[in-house]
């Protein structure tokens, strides 16, 4: 039996009267690629925000390797090895691509005053190391992108920005990766390339677990091991895509939307 890395129990998030998540039980196994689907406004992004400490759950709990991390602040969650991308890109656009990636590698940086201000030799060594890591990572995802390492993010296309965001989430070699519609705005080819790279990455880091929020059902069908379907903040189905897509509740939720 595979190990559970992340588990939510009766997770509930409310905004005023609205329950954006309502008693959600989700399990994520080690090395698993979990698809999270559901119509617009069904609470998928809210789920990520509750996991990463951006929203505080009103009830329920989040367990990481069995330890309760409910309500942990975002910087703690990152320290536990959980990283994410944002549905609406949240890069520091006036900074360079390199700077953005290094921000993602926060936990491997030495923030000491001595290291940063006075011992510039050791700082330079760490900088060069970070440049090399960033360059390698970027060129995995797009051969052209690595050339823009020293350009401001604002000069990149939307697609490249999404790639940078994925790289920022990967650079610290997380245990759990949360992807919030990373392929929005990409062509099918670009999406396929992105997913291929993610699969490659999983081969390299087999213990990485991924939760992917995605609109494109074909894609979920192809890449996910299992998926969870949300509607109005509740889980309405769970299992392999081929199974859940047949369930009448799921079809109704989607048909109602389309």
């Amino acid at each position, binding site marked *: 039996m595979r190990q559970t890395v992340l588990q939510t129990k009766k997770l509930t998030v409310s905004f005023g009267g609205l329950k954006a998540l309502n008693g959600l039980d989700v399990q994520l196994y080690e090395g698993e690629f979990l698809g999270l689907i559901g119509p617009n406004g069904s609470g998928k992004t809210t789920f990520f925000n509750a996991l990463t400490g951006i929203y505080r759950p009103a009830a329920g709990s989040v367990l990481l390797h069995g330890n309760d991390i409910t309500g942990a602040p*975002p910087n703690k969650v*990152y320290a536990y090895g959980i990283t994410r991308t944002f549905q609406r890109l949240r890069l520091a656009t006036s*900074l360079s691509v390199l700077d953005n990636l290094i921000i993602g590698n926060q936990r491997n940086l030495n923030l000491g*005053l001595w290291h940063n*201000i006075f011992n510039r030799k050791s*700082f330079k060594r760490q900088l060069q190391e970070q440049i090399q890591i960033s360059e390698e990572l970027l060129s995995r995802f797009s051969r052209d992108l690595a050339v823009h390492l020293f350009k401001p993010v604002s000069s990149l296309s939307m697609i490249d920005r999404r790639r940078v965001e994925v790289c920022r989430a990967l650079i610290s070699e997380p245990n759990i990766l949360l992807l919030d519609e990373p392929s929005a705005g990409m062509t099918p080819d670009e999406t396929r390339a992105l997913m291929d790279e993610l699969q490659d990455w999983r081969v390299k880091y087999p213990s990485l677990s991924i939760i992917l929020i995605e609109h494109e059902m074909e894609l979920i069908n192809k890449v996910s091991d299992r998926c969870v379907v949300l509607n109005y903040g509740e889980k309405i189905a769970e299992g392999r895509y081929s199974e859940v897509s047949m369930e009448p509740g799921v079809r109704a939720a989607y048909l109602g939307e389309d």
Partner: protein
Amino acid sequence: MATNRVVGRPFCGTRVITMPDFKTKLAILLGVALSVVVLYGFLYLEREWEIGALLVMVPLGVYFLRRTNALTYYQHAAREMPRFTWISFVLGAVVLIMLLRHDDFALLMLTTVLLYATVSLGLTIQFGFVGVVNFSAVAFFGIGAYSMAALNQHFVFLPDLLIIFFSGAISALLGALLILPILRTRGHYAALITIAFGILFRTFLEVNDVLGGPQGLKVPALEMFGWNFGNSFPSEMGGGSFYVAYAIVALVLVAIVYLITRLIESSWLGLNMDSVRLDEVASAAFGINGPRWKIAAFMLGNCFAGLAGAVYAAMYGFIAPANFNLSDSLLLVSIVLLGGIGNAVAVIPAAFLIVVLPEKFQVIQEYRLLLFGIVVILILRFRPSGLMPRGLRQYFAGRFG
């Protein structure tokens, strides 16, 4: 998959300009010499039409230098050899002080510019890096000044250099009290808190008899390195106003504070601060503790203000609540806005303009706040990144030798 090599020199961006060393140095020295000449004229000339002519010539000159690419060339030179540039400018400033050594008023203005630039560097860290507003910079400047006066009075045995450091530390610590309510509020409210603090500070000084009340306190001249700063320089030493010594101290202060600011900017510290300013939520999702950086930046910036205030108090010999008005805080903020938010170099020319112009033109003196208000509005409307916008972070000089 094949990896692509990054073209260009990694630390100075992707554009590569190769210049032999001596040419680079020559370009930098020329820039310094030109600045010294212009600033000398700016400080020395007195007739309004002369200053006016200078003020017309400078933008024309800048335009000409830009058109001939000399400015780009110069910027690259300065990026390639930041240390050499820094030393050259410090020495250039020493030359400027020597040129003006008999001119009390010019030296007073120059020293004020350097001290205001020091405070503005603090604001650059607070406002430009981490994004904490501070409309009470002059209160921290004042805390430094009053600490100088009080410590001098009650702890006569302390060396003045130590008192200056203590003044900076006291400023930083009192600022730490203010940061707590600032962290709990956002945007305009944080700004209002700092404004309230500035007003509170002034009122506190006025009603506090220990600190001299509305009459203020006398501050003895500095005594450091065996020199009493109240003395003018004897003719055997080439002569010169007693302000020369203060100008040198202010220069050393601003040079060090500038260096610290740049080192912060070109390290993970500056990167984290920028990240907090640009998107605190995303930063937090990558482990960055926003409040921690805000507190650090706020304290450091106020420490700079306190250090400058201490030197200012000793130079004026007398401080009173009326020296620390809200309008002066706004003036300091306008220096940062005019120069370019977050660009450490830019505060120096901006401080020159904002401090010296009103002294030279009667009209500006009278309508000072009105005019600065208009300038700030124009900048925010037409050039929000200031006269010298901040560039991308440069961690190291382009050349490794």
